[in-house]
């Protein structure tokens, strides 16, 4: 079931090209959106969330065209969105904040029940009476996620929701996102390849405003097959290389003859599809 159909989306901010000829589709399940800073991920998510329009291209979300007001409204009614820096009204309790968002989503019948439901879904039953300023970063993100889940949206857009969370919080968040992905479309923007590996059945890699990869996580890892090897010393020709815990160097690039090739990870595949200049920049 296709939720999003994007064809040739482009957007420029003055002289900067944020997106160029971006085409993809989204179906049910969790799709990861990977890319370095400035790749255009947030811009793409904001277009999908109807916050800004694209300059060019064709976009249909849930069968509606967000270029017109009626289409935008139709999309927003079935959209859950957690921005990169959502911001919170610090003096609201968790319940009040989600309730406030529920009102702005025009949820009128059984609103309080719905607020309790989503707070329960993100595990904040016991914290709903606490002021947001008293909550930890992870709990605040869960409040934001609860707001995104109001009214059972068909499309959920999450922009780097695990940034700043400690490992335990990140693990909890992954569980939540995995649950959310059941029966609806979730687009998850992240820097964490581990998130993609554990949550996504599909991944899109964006760099410099263009889609560089669109496929399954295993296929992304496969992009680096034959280009990852280990060595006891730093390999001269490697585009990237780092010492691992066992003392060996993990190298990506064109392996020398006889190199000890290893099975690539998603991270290796991601680094491989990023252009050589960016890769060189990271390696240095």
């Amino acid at each position, binding site marked *: *079931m*296709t*939720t999003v*159909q994007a064809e040739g989306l482009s957007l420029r901010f003055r002289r900067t090209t944020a997106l160029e000829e971006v085409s993809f589709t989204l179906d*049910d399940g969790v799709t990861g959106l990977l890319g370095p800073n400035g790749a255009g991920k947030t811009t793409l998510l*904001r277009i999908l*969330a*109807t*916050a800004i329009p694209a300059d060019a291209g064709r976009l*249909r979300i*849930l*069968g*509606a065209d967000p270029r017109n007001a009626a289409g935008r*409204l*139709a999309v*927003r*009614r*079935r*959209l859950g*969105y*957690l*921005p*990169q*820096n*959502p*911001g*919170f*009204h*610090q003096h609201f309790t968790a319940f*009040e904040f989600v*309730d*406030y*968002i529920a*009102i*702005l*989503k*025009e*949820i*009128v019948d059984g*609103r309080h029940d719905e607020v309790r439901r989503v707070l329960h879904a993100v595990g904040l039953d016991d914290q709903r009476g606490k002021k947001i300023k008293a909550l930890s970063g992870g709990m605040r993100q869960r409040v*934001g996620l609860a*707001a995104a889940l109001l009214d059972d949206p*068909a499309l959920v857009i999450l922009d780097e929701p695990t940034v700043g969370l400690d490992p335990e919080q990140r693990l909890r968040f992954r569980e939540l996102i995995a649950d959310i992905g059941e029966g609806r*479309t979730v687009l998850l923007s992240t820097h964490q390849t581990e998130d993609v590996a554990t949550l996504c059945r599909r991944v899109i890699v964006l760099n410099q405003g263009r889609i560089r990869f669109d496929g399954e996580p295993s296929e992304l890892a496969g992009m680096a097959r034959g280009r990852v090897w280990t060595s006891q010393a730093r390999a001269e020709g490697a585009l990237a290389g780092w010492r691992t815990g066992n003392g060996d160097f993990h190298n990506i690039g064109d392996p020398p003859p006889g190199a000890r090739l290893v099975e690539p990870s998603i991270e290796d595949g991601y680094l491989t599809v990023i252009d050589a200049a960016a890769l060189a920049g990271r390696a240095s």
Partner: protein
Amino acid sequence: MTTTLTRPSSSEAAPRRAVLALARMESARLLRHPVTVAATLLLAVSWVSSWFTIATTRYPVLQELDRDSAMGMMVLLGGAALVTGNLAVLRTHRDGTTGLSQVLILPDHARTLAHLLALLPLTAIGAVLIAARMALLALLAPAAGRPDPYELAAGPAAVLLLGALGVLLGRLTRSAVAAPLALLVLLAALVALEPITNGGGTALWLAPQGGAALEMPVPASLMARPAGPHLAYLLGLAGLLATAAVLRAGARGARVTVAGALALACAVAGGTAQLSSPGRDVAAARASVMKHPSQHETCRELGNVTYCAFEGFGAWIPAWDTVVRAVVARVPAPARTARLTVRQRIAVPAFDSASRPGQLLDAWRADDAAAGTPGAVGVGTHWGDGAAAADLAAQVAYRLVTGNRVGDTVEASQADRDGTVVCGGRGVLVAWLTGQATPSALTGLHHRAEESRGERGGVSFYETHLFPTVHVPAPELAIATQALSRPHADIAARVQQSWPTLTAPDTTAAQTAQLLGVPAPATDTACG
């Protein structure tokens, strides 16, 4: 295959219900905002404390206090509505939730409408507070007159107006400084405008607080303040600001146009009507009440004293009687031959610019004569503080000591400057009888003496605030003050014994001091 919307879209009524739900939420937050709570407490405390600190509050004139109450409400609750309403509109920007907020369904103009509706409960609380104050004053105190409902409603209307201004400012600028700055400008304008337009200027009606207060309270029927049109003006302005706010937030359509047009019509009609002068009937009634008070009063006899009060002021008669009796009680029985009449009077220059004090005294004499109460003692429309009690006691004492009517021994041309100067033993007696009447009158005697210190010394007493009617020179006042510090029974006995001598016109201050057993002043009075 494309996933389409499987749920029916929200009902037609959903946006309206969402606006109401948001208004309820915003209203609850506005009411419990620290600024609102502090302003409400401050207003309540100022009203309660005035009961204990401002003596005249315990004898309230309700047609005066209604404006006063509305003013306090405008400054405090209106200021709170301005600031908190503005902060609520700016919340999304201040807390950085714009990214999420902009993709939610309820449009900006609907949210703005909710912010405006959220002001209504605070407005209603303002109305309840002001009504409660009036009711309590009417129940607890011998209140005079009646409040004007339109004047009372101006306070809550100003809360609505300033709240709407706060919402509009939030839509015009993201700066949180704008609202407090606007409040400061309004307060500064309020302070600056009051003296400019004092004394009947009409321009002040264009400001939220309305026209200036009169120089002294007058019967409710003479107020003739355009409170109704002013209320319409305030509500029209509030409507205009509200319309501008929703327009700025993107609202369009016939409803907005109609609302804006109605608000404009209301503001223009009310604004124009409030600037028109009171009609001829009102002007004639005002002049008549001022010059011929007996024709507009109801009289009541207590013992051998007749008290005549304007409509609504009858509740003060027992308080007047307490003072009058305390003066009469010190006069030997044979000297209490004259039947006393205490008549309430007003003197407001704005009511009849042709009335000079001397002309007013003549008019009052003629009025008393026509009413069959020659030599009536005057009392004003303020009561509760010591000065008013001292003024009444002094007028009564003067009448009993001299047998004269106020103004009898003074030329009309001097009346507005001097009043009747009472010298020698008579002067001492008038001051002493005044000070011994009640503790409040003693306080008032000192207060009036303090007022006169910077001028010609001694002490001047007033029937109304406009001009002095009785003046006791400094040497006589000094002897009276000495006598008041001595045991009351001793002095009272000496007064009883020496009454004929003390009230003789040629008894000097020094002789009086000797008779009362107090030190004579270093200099005798120069008046004759």
